[in-house]
């Protein structure tokens, strides 16, 4: 009896030791020891999660001895700076926050490296980092030819932000479910110049293309079919674009110069009753220092004639080929996208990319956007990831902005876009 007790004790002790060696055998401090004293340059976009990482950075620097210099840039300038460095191979940047629609372009140009060699290195990879916790769409966004080129960093899903208080005050039921209900709500809520029925990001900019894509999908339209035959100018495309033009009647006068930043300010100030916007801004709606609509904002899919519509615009952290500190960069990426850092940043800018965080009941209660993001994240629509997409954005931004500015009809603008996009696809060998 005593023998068996002793054996059980030894077995239990052994199991605990074994468990400890698996679960606690890896630590950031230990993994980073060979790289202490390294300085990393992290180029990122001026988005809320970037601010949060900068705030949390001293923890990482203290634990690892790795210094990180954060360089924040607006969306277009981020690429400007990064591409200059990558093309010249100067190796200024070690960590790069890239939009998922850029993945193909950067991989094909050989500017970013796959993360597998680091992920498979037991000295670098945290065994407790549950990669399955990332939403599948966001993980897919970092992949190219079956290889992962980044860890999802910023959720960024575009859907409808609607101000429940304004809707209630005006006796309008929300959220609208179909485009018809949506247009009706805009009409009813529009009371300029005090309140506008909707905001719009209709500048000649990527923003107008993103917003219009939501409309296109809501009207069951597509840019092209499976054989790259252009469909954006078919009946659904025209209806979607005419709907978009009609929205401008219930939007502030300056929306042809507005991007997502202007929409956010208008939503925060309660100047617009609703608008399509990116979910990463949920925190700014609840910040009493800059928001007049604390506790009023609600979130829903873009009203659609079919399945719920939302638009993924997220980004990942990757390593440039020219970086001279790839291992240290991987440790930083792993830390910046970890469960702990994403969770602690909720409300401070973090825009988590991990499912488990969105399913915490207290957070769902406090941040209504978490319910909407969780519902949308796995199936959200996304824009093409082919390298030629930049050229198409240029075409679409000009043509769509021309529709809102009143210099072209929806049909004219879509036909021109279709013609030019078709020639881009043909020239690139897709058809």
């Amino acid at each position: 009896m005593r023998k068996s007790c002793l054996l059980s004790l030894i077995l239990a002790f052994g199991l605990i030791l074994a468990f400890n060696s698996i679960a606690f055998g890896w630590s950031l401090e230990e993994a980073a020891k060979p790289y202490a004293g390294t300085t990393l340059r992290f180029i990122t976009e001026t988005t809320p999660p970037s601010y949060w990482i900068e705030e949390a950075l001293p923890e990482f620097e203290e634990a690892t001895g790795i210094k990180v210099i954060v360089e924040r840039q607006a969306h277009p300038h981020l690429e400007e700076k990064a591409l200059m460095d990558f093309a010249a191979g100067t190796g200024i940047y070690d960590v790069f926050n890239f939009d998922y629609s850029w993945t193909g372009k950067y991989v094909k140009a050989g500017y970013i490296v796959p993360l597998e060699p680091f992920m498979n290195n037991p000295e670098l990879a945290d065994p407790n980092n549950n990669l399955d916790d990332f939403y599948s769409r966001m993980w897919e966004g970092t992949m190219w030819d079956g290889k992962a080129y980044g860890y999802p960093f910023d959720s960024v899903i575009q859907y409808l932000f609607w101000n429940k208080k304004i809707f209630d005050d005006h006796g309008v039921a929300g959220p609208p479910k179909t485009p018809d209900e949506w247009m009706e709500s805009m009409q009813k809520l529009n009371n300029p110049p005090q309140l506008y029925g909707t905001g719009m990001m209709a500048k000649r900019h990527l923003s107008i293309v993103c917003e219009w894509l939501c409309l296109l999908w809501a009207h069951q339209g597509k840019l092209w079919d499976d054989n790259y035959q252009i469909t954006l100018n078919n009946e659904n495309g025209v209806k979607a674009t005419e709907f978009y033009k009609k929205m401008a009647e219930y939007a502030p006068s300056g929306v042809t110069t507005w991007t997502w930043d202007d929409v956010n300010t208008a939503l925060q100030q309660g100047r617009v009753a609703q608008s399509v916007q990116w979910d990463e801004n949920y925190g700014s709606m609840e910040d009493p220092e800059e928001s007049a609509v604390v506790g009023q904002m609600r979130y829903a899919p873009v009203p659609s004639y079919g399945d719920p519509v939302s638009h993924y615009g997220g980004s990942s952290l990757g390593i440039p080929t020219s970086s001279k500190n790839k291992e240290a960069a991987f440790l930083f990426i792993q830390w910046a996208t970890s469960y702990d850092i994403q969770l602690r940043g909720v409300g401070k800018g973090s825009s988590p990319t991990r499912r488990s965080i969105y399913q915490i009941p207290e957070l769902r209660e406090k941040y209504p956007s978490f319910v909407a993001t969780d519902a949308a994240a796995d199936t959200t629509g996304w824009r093409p990831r082919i390298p030629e997409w930049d050229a198409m954005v240029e075409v679409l931004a000009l043509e769509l902005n021309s529709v809102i500015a009143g210099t072209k009809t929806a049909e004219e603008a879509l036909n021109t876009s279709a013609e030019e996009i078709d020639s881009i696809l043909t020239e690139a060998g897709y058809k």
Partner: protein
Amino acid sequence: MQNDFNVFRRLNFWVSSSENKFKWLLLLPTIIVLALITVYPVIYALNLALSDYNLARASETLQGYIGLDNFRAILRNPQFWNSLKVTGIFTVVAVGVEFFLGLAIALILQGIVTNRVVRSLVLLPMIMAPIVVGLAWTYLYQSEFGLVTYILRSLHLMSYQTAPLASVSSALPALIAVDIWEWTPFLIMVLLAGLEALPTAPYEAAKIDKASPFLVFRKITIPLLRPVILIVLVLRIMDAIRVFDIVYALTEGGPASATDVLSMFIYRNAFYLWDIGKASAISFILLYIIMIVSVILVNLLSRVKEAS
């Protein structure tokens, strides 16, 4: 004597030759620096303009030297012709208004404003960085809270359905207004300096002849001031043709293509499409335009100088 003369000549040759060499030696650092910062980039840019060079594409997919293909593609692009038109309108209207306004104010201020502080204050808009000017005017033109927007609406010059930068018809005039605000002080100061440097004798003669002020202005002031006028016009036209900062800060070429000046078109090709080859080619076209306009104006200037 002949020998002495030959010796002197030989000596003189060596002295002048070494003097020449010394002059060149002194000039060499400047020539090297100029070559590095001007000639080399121009040659490099020309090479880019004749190449298929895109930052976002792998080097093995680029075709390298493609001759004049970039230029051909640009000349076939309707957006280029639109940019050319917008740049032309911007330059003519902005510089035209700045000149007449500058001359009028300079004539009014002549002999009145001698205070250095006042003169410095007049120069303030010009001293500000153009991008700062652009950002400041972004707020002034803001569709909801902008002061200029508010004033225009209060005076019923603009409806609540539109805003200065939001409408195709008002965006370019709004940009021109910013340029006028920024650069008229430059013209005022230069023309004022020119006016104050004019000889007094012709004016005294005109006074004795009891010539009317308008006749004095037309027959004496303008002809005497012509060299100064041409210099400021050359400088301003060259500057206005390549305007970028305020356009980038205020409209980025929109709405639609209403403010898409040539520099913005270059920027779009270089930093939205990463097509450095095409962007360089357009830059060369812009360079040729500025050169042609400048040569015409400089020729005019030298003719005026000869005549006077």
